[in-house]
């Protein structure tokens, strides 16, 4: 290992390429600094500063969308920017911006430190962006663990609520378990590849290209297959795929609502981004193993998610369980991406619509949260449409989009996925997906019903008295943001052109 080589490696550390992540991290640090130097009465602006910073980073990414480093190995092969990475950056930034916004609604209700919330959200977002750019398992694992540990904290953020802490602990144990499993998978992959020397330069199984190259020549290597599958298991935990979906409802219910949104949207999307990268760039030669595995996972995920959601009345759990089924649909897209190249676009399109709709719904939920954040049932929605027609409308649009009802964006997402699945000839999965969508209509429609049709009250839980709802009336900016989300959902459903044009098909 010569110094020259090391120098050349050091030179490939193109920090500018990671401008958005660095800006985000610096801004996050800046928040902490602001908390120290600003007088107490001015600290209430910190959340807005955080949002402005994120918005600026977002704009930076959008304006530098075709950045010069696309497709190059940076940081000695740790990082590789791709068009999908750019899409992911935008996605995560939009998501974190909205989560921060939800935080500004939610946090003032508590007597908890606030700045740390935004700080961690921003750092986690930056880490997620790095995760998606990773081209190397060390980078991958470090970024992933940063995300995970950030989420440990965020999930248990409302530490004065025992249920939140319970959720935090469950997430902690299961997250650590899945990390361990995933780590073992990485280790096996590393071991399987061994040492590869090209032109005197040593490569290992940590590098995606090397691994891919190795697998191409040894598609039957047991260690590699086992490692790949354990890795997939770890990712399955992130996206909430069967049987690693089991933590989702509990953690979603316990976590603070903005964090539930963060988990549901960003964390899941990060998982899918990673899975797509792995499947499309690394594990391509393992299609023979991965396609059946992922197909079974997808089918089971759809079924389990929808069935369990059917009778769920706690809305946060419902979002979790229905989110599981969405993960199942998305997995179909991932499976299809083995044979249909543009499946990746379809998955991202779906994720985009899912972001808009979920955030709209979580926004409404945040406003509806009573004193106990963990206890939000359909009963709270009983008079929503009458008392707050705006929130009711946003909820209807969001839930409708999640259910995949035209002319809302969610429908377009499902449509593209179905087309992809058809082109990949995944007929059994399609059948299961259709069944799942039909089932999902039941509970999504039930939600809308409980918001709009006052008289509705199923016999099962009729005994519990309707909890007192404490709806926060949205501020103007809140209305604006939620309205924008709903409008975007509607417009993308009718005119999906912008998003689909923008995605690198």
């Amino acid at each position, binding site marked *: 290992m010569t110094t020259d080589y090391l120098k050349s490696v050091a030179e490939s550390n193109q920090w500018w390429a990671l401008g958005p992540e660095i800006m985000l991290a610096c801004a996050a640090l800046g928040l902490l600094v602001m908390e120290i130097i600003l007088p107490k009465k001015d600290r209430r602006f910190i959340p807005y500063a955080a949002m402005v910073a994120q918005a600026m980073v977002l704009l930076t990414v959008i304006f530098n969308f075709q950045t010069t480093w696309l497709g190059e190995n940076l940081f000695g092969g740790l990082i590789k920017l791709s068009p999908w990475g750019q899409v992911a950056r935008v996605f995560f930034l939009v998501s974190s911006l909205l989560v921060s916004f939800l935080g500004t609604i939610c946090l003032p209700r508590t007597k908890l430190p606030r700045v740390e919330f935004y700080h961690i959200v921003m750092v986690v977002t930056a880490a997620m962006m790095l995760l998606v750019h990773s081209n190397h398992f060390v980078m991958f694992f470090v970024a992933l663990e940063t995300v995970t540990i950030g989420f440990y904290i965020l999930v248990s953020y409302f530490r004065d609520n025992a249920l939140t802490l319970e959720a935090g*602990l469950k997430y902690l144990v*299961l997250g650590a378990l899945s990390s361990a*499993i995933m780590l073992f998978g990485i280790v096996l992959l590393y071991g399987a590849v061994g040492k590869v020397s090209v032109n005197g330069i040593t490569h290992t199984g940590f590098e995606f290209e090397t691994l891919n190259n190795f697998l191409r020549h040894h598609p039957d290597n047991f260690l590699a297959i086992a490692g790949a*599958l354990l890795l997939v298991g770890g990712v399955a935990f992130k996206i909430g795929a069967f*049987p690693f979906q089991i933590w989702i409802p509990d953690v979603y219910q316990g976590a603070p609502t903005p964090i539930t949104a963060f988990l549901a949207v960003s964390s899941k999307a990060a998982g899918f981004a990673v899975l797509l990268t792995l499947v499309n760039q690394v594990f391509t030669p393992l299609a023979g*193993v991965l396609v059946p595995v992922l197909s079974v996972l997808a089918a089971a995920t759809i079924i*389990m998610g929808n069935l369990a959601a059917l*009778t769920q009345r706690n809305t946060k759990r419902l979002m979790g369980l229905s989110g599981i089924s969405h993960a199942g649909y998305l997995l179909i897209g991932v499976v299809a991406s083995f044979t249909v190249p543009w499946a990746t676009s379809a998955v991202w399109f779906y994720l985009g619509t899912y972001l808009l709709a979920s955030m709209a719904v979580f926004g409404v939920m945040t406003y509806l949260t009573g004193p106990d954040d963990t206890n939000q049932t359909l009963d709270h929605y009983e008079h929503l449409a009458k008392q707050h027609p705006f929130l009711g409308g946003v909820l209807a649009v969001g839930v409708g989009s999640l259910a995949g009802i035209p002319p809302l964006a969610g429908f377009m997402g499902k449509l593209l996925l179905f087309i992809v699945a058809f082109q990949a000839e995944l007929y059994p999965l399609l059948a299961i997906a259709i069944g799942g969508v039909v*089932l999902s209509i039941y509970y999504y429609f039930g939600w809308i019903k409980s918001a709009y049709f006052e008289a509705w009250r199923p016999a099962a839980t009729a005994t519990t008295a309707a909890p007192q709802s404490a709806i926060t009336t949205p501020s103007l900016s809140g209305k604006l943001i939620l309205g924008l989300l709903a409008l975007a959902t509607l417009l993308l459903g009718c005119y999906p052109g912008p998003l689909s044009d923008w995605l690198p098909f």
Partner: protein
Amino acid sequence: MNPVHTTLLILLLPLFSAAVIALGLRRQGAWAAGLSTAVAGAIAILSWQLIFSGQRNFPAAWEWLRLGDFVVSLGFKFDDLAALMLFVVSFVGFLIHVFSLGYMRADAARARFFGGLSIFMFSMLGIVLADNLFMIFIFWELVGFSSYLLIGHWHERAAAAEAAKKAFIVNRVGDFGFLLGIIMCYWSNGTVNLTALGAQHVPSTLIALLLFCGAAGKSAQLPLQVWLPDAMEGPTPVSALIHAATMVAAGIYLLCRINVLMVPDALTVIMWIGTLTALYAALCAVVQRDIKKVLAYSTLSQLGYMVAAFGLGSFTLRHEMGGVVHEMVIATGVGAAMFHLTTHAFFKALLFLGSGSVIHGCHHEQDIFKMGGLRARMPLTFITFTLGVLAIIGMPGLAGFFSKDAILYLALEKNTAVFAVLVFTAVLTSFYMIRLWKLTFWGTARSDHAAHAHESGLTMTLPLVVLAVLSIIGGYAGFFSRWAGEVADLVPEATGAAHTTIWLVSLGVMLMGASGAWLFYASAETDSLEGKFRLGFRGLTGLQESFDRLYTYYVAKVQQRLAMLLNFIEQIFLAGLLIRGLGGFVTLVGYGARSLYTGSLHTYVYWFLLGTALLWAFAVGIF
């Protein structure tokens, strides 16, 4: 005037009248009545002009629907048969319009009534003029509809509403076969145009019988006769027009129209059905108390005569020419049936209108045992009614005598059994008509209504007089053949010994029945037959009610129960057990799936273990 235009005018005028009444004259009863009657008059005049202009078989057809090769066209076939029928319909129709002016004067819903009459005229004329079976079917149904409207005119009376419904539905049952027959005819012959069919067709018993179903429904032949007696719930002019003179005769007209399609097997069936209907109805008529019901059963019986005549009259002649056997069907039945149809239209309309006059005079009393002695109080009605009665029982010299003779002769020639039954029926006819006549007009008034009866006004008596005249002269060859043209040639005429036999038989039969009734019935409020022959009376009543009972039983016990059963299966099994059950099952599974989220961390770790194990198994290649 172009005959096509005239025909169109005849057909469309009543439609125009009906439309105007429906849209604008709903509350102007007098105007509506006037318009409708004026239109009827205009039709009568135009028809007269058309019939005597000598124009026949002028081409007139318009394509009305085309889908692929399937074309439905509407057009006219105006031959002598149609001309005869047109005469009957337009002329009797007009007279009945006039009669209704008086009869319905006090009715609140007069506009609706006359509107209905106009629709009826339109539909009936459509049948008469139609040149193909689809068109006949269209107007056939419309006739049924207008009949429904008119029977149910007094819809606030449950019986009237029920009767209207029954009439429509029973007719639909007949039309079930009719439509199938038409469609089958269309596919086997490629056309349903009457002229084209006449030129070439594939003989088929099934087609003939299916088409006869339609005729049986409309002409109330066994076993579809049940609606006609009930239809008397409608106003009396309606009974006269629709349920005596024209609509019920449409079945006969239809048979004559499709005579070319008939085959011997089908004709035998038709003959027996007609004969049995004649007998059955005559038997039923004997025990009726309601003046209109008697006439209704009498109509049924006479329709049976006509159908029997049609069934009888087709001789199949075989003769060889050059080794090829030719079969020829001679439509003597058409002539006999149409002849009787015409005369029957006159005297039955007369009888119904007469009964209407009686009912009107007696303040809507219809029970003949509560009448009596009307001879003096309603002289004009009495005289005309008497003429009608004589005509129907076959008094020589009156119209009915000639037409009935023709049928009996045909029966004698063709089938002795049928002849015997028809003769017996004739005895019965004479018996119940004289019974009716005696109980109504002779003796003393047996109720207040009858005691204070009064003669009807001019609008009502004038049609009676005209019809009475027609009932006298309608049977003479000179009169009939003027109208009927070629059809008159088809009427079988007895000659020589047969002539004498028929003459004597009918006279004897008439006298036997008439004298029996005259002597048997006393002027009393109870039926003498019931008093003296309790068993026979009961048998006859039972016979009359048997069909209704059977149908009621079928509807209430079979059809409705089947419907309830199916509904039960649908609600309980399909919508309930299957769908709700499936829903419940899925919900249950949902609860099951939900209960997997036990909240226990250890369980969750087991899930992870399971997942890892499964993935490992995949890697090892167990799956």
